[in-house]
């Protein structure tokens, strides 16, 4: 027995960063908006207060704020010839669940991806020639330019209270910032976070080697801050419980303290928690969405919610999963290289190395989330010559250190036994005296890195799980080996007592945490034959469906994705409000 509800004008799936931005920006239209969130509600007072939130076991090890894989998960494999098996526990990446989504438990690193990434095929062909791009690497332009998106980056940075130092204001290079960034209209809303001892040692060595260190931009507010919507952020307390935790100081730019409460001021915005959307409903032509089907997970009741406009704003992977389950767009086939849904799935690579300094204390538990010092000489720097290294992409390199929590952070020098008194002595000696240099590497799409529906395994609603087929290919292995060389060079220049072996990521393993930066699968572009969405994140196939999130990215940067995820949500909201709603149609 399915309950059919009276129609709404706009239906938004998911109430995290993008759902919150869309609801806030579309609220003033006065249209009837329903937002369906599959998890529960969240507030700083009730969910993130001290001492409750300072519980490494509950939040970091047991994933209290994250997706519950006993209900829905993914099947995973490295290549099409392997049987895909379920990801039975969370590990390599950590999607959120509940109000605010992963925006509640992220670290806050917030970048502007540069223009040359949005025009990646054009730029690489122009500089290195067509043959430089391997045949099995479907990189493609996004359909937008950096200049178009700049005002929306600004909007998101000011919404989230990002702390940083501009490197290029309207073409003027700013000392102390990232000289390789695209021109920006103005500086960050907040000054950079404090630099710790590890950052200072890294910056000194990097400068001596001729690189260009700058403070990594982070949505951890370095001072009390009021954002343009009038929402208050507190000052970061450097508590060391950021990523995987909610912020008790309201200092981490998070949806539940910024965009969501603003959206909920509009009486026409109706938030419904514990509502799990199982399908986008289509009319008989297959070209028009008529609403969604969902389950009230508190009662099991099945409900149909008709709507004129549907916006998918869940975690990127969930957006792709919903499109596949709903039969929207043609699923991608890697053999024929036709179809678009599930195409260009990418992840993030990199390398890391541990350094040990006898007698020096870095106090790793005094830490912000996204802070750190970075260099972009091998990443956003377009002048860095990739042809010498034979890969497309690059890596940004940082010393961060957001975490001294000892269940997971227990650095010991290579060769230390894993238990016993020798392990205890090494842990006691080196816990405070270690730091890590990390490189975060881009991942180019490959025809065999894909998302589709699993033929065997089902979720709690009896629907097929989504199947992820992914591994780092030759391009990424070369890139990660190169970044390992660079971090080794910087590490040696920092003159540690002991240095570990720089470790490049060469294959994808689902167990250790690496990055919640899953991209692609419902990508934006200029051609309906090779992309799922147009430049406004509108489905080419279904004009009254827009799809937010990093699932729209045709490739993955070395940069964290939340900056462009937020900016593109603001950009799409503008297009919907100013153009689509006045005359519903294909905008391109």
């Amino acid at each position, binding site marked *: 027995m399915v309950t059919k509800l009276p129609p709404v004008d706009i239906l938004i799936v998911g109430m995290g960063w993008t759902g919150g931005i869309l609801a806030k920006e579309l609220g003033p239209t006065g249209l009837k908006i329903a937002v369906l969130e599959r998890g529960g509600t969240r507030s700083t007072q009730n969910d993130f207060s*001290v*001492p*409750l939130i*300072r*519980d*490494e*076991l509950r939040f970091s*090890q*047991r*994933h209290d704020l994250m997706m*519950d*894989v*006993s209900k829905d998960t993914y099947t*995973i494999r*490295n290549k099409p010839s*392997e*049987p895909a*098996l*379920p*990801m*039975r*526990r*969370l590990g390599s990446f950590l999607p959120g669940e509940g109000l605010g989504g992963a925006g509640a438990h992220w670290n806050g690193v917030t970048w502007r991806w540069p223009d040359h990434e949005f025009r990646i095929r054009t730029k690489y062909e122009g500089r290195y020639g067509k043959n430089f791009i391997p045949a099995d690497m479907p990189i493609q332009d996004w359909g937008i330019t950096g200049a178009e998106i700049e005002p929306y980056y600004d909007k998101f940075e000011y919404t989230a209270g990002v702390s940083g130092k501009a490197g290029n204001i309207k073409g003027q290079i700013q000392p102390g910032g990232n000289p390789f960034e695209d021109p920006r209209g103005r500086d960050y809303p907040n000054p950079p976070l*404090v*630099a710790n*001892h590890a950052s*200072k040692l890294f910056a000194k060595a990097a400068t001596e080697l001729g690189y260009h260190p700058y403070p990594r931009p982070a949505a951890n507010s370095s001072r009390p801050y009021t954002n343009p919507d009038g929402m208050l952020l507190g*000052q970061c*307390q*450097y*508590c*060391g419980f950021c990523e995987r935790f909610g912020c*008790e100081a309201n200092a981490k730019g998070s949806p539940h303290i910024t965009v969501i409460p603003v959206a909920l001021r509009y009486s026409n915005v109706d938030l419904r928690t514990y509502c799990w959307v199982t399908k986008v409903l289509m009319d008989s032509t297959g070209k028009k969405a008529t609403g969604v089907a969902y389950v009230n997970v508190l009662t099991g009741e099945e409900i149909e919610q008709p709507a004129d406009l549907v916006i998918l704003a869940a975690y990127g992977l969930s957006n792709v999963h919903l499109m596949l389950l709903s039969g929207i767009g043609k699923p991608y086939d890697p053999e024929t290289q036709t179809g678009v849904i599930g195409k260009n799935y990418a992840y993030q690579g990199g390398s890391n190395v541990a350094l040990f300094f006898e007698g*020096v*204390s*870095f*106090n790793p*538990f*005094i830490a*912000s989330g996204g802070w750190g010092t970075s260099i972009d000489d091998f990443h956003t720097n377009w002048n860095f010559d990739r042809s010498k290294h034979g890969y497309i992409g690059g890596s940004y390199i940082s010393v961060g250190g957001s975490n*001294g*929590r*000892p*269940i997971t952070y227990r650095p010991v020098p290579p060769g230390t036994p*894993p*238990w*016993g*008194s020798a392990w*205890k*002595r090494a*842990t006691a000696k080196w*816990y*405070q005296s270690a730091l890590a240099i990390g490189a975060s590497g881009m991942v180019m799409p490959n025809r065999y890195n894909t998302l589709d529906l699993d033929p*065997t*395994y*089902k979720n709690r609603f009896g629907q097929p799980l989504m199947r992820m087929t992914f591994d780092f290919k030759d391009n990424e292995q070369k890139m990660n080996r190169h970044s390992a060389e660079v971090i080794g060079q910087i590490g040696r220049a920092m003159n540690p007592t002991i240095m570990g072996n720089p470790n490049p990521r060469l*294959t994808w*393993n*689902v*167990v250790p945490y690496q990055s919640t930066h899953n991209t692609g699968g419902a990508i934006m572009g200029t051609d309906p034959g090779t992309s799922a969405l147009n430049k406004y994140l509108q489905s080419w196939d279904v004009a009254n469906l827009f799809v937010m999130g990093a699932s729209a990215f045709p490739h993955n940067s070395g940069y964290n994705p939340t900056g462009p995820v937020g900016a593109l949500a603001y950009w799409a909201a503008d297009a919907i409000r100013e153009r689509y709603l006045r005359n519903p149609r294909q905008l391109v």
Partner: protein
Amino acid sequence: MSETKIGRREFLTSVGVVGAASASVNALAPVAAEAQTASQAAATPPAAEAAGYEYLKPVEQAFVEALVDHMIPKDELTGSGTELGIATYIDRALAGAWGKGARLYKDGPWQRGTPNQGYQLPLTPAELYRAAIEGSNAYCRKTFGKDFDRCNPEQKEAFLKDLAAGKITLEGGLPGRAFFVVLYDNVMEGMFADPIYGGNKDKAGWKMIGFPGVLANNAENVKKYSDGKKFPANPISIADMS
């Protein structure tokens, strides 16, 4: 901590039954109850500190106690694994939601998979411990002539090294490495998780490394300790703030 509170370990030591715990736990119950009463008279301890085991059976208790004492030996840095409450931590974890398979995708079919595909057994953590302890003791009996907890330190070390290296398949084809991965995490959790979960007793794990626990406010400390100087940690736990 009340001086009258007597831990299970001291108990067993005082009556000379360490190493034969399997036969003796029930016989000790009246004494344990008396100790518990004495302890409650002084202060009501958090539930996790209560004596006794909730999930582990006697043979399993002996195995886990021997394991945590081997991996975390008593030395100048901390007491032994059992003194730190790590065996209690593991018992409570297995008895609770995590042990029963919360946040674990449990549907079949099952295949071994590649190492990159992670845990693929049809067992909850509690079921895994039950089967793998039985299998480990069988392996130790075959190899060393006795259960794991009765083995000498060299034999324990050899067994754990082979288990960690994936060289041991336990009875019924259970991969020993899958057990090791879970138990190693659990030992570290018992050593370093907040003491409300029964391990890290008296914050000994945190004191060993200088981790300050749930300390809230570092906006000034971050500037004061940004030059390589050590922050003087006096760890604070959730219970301290509750």
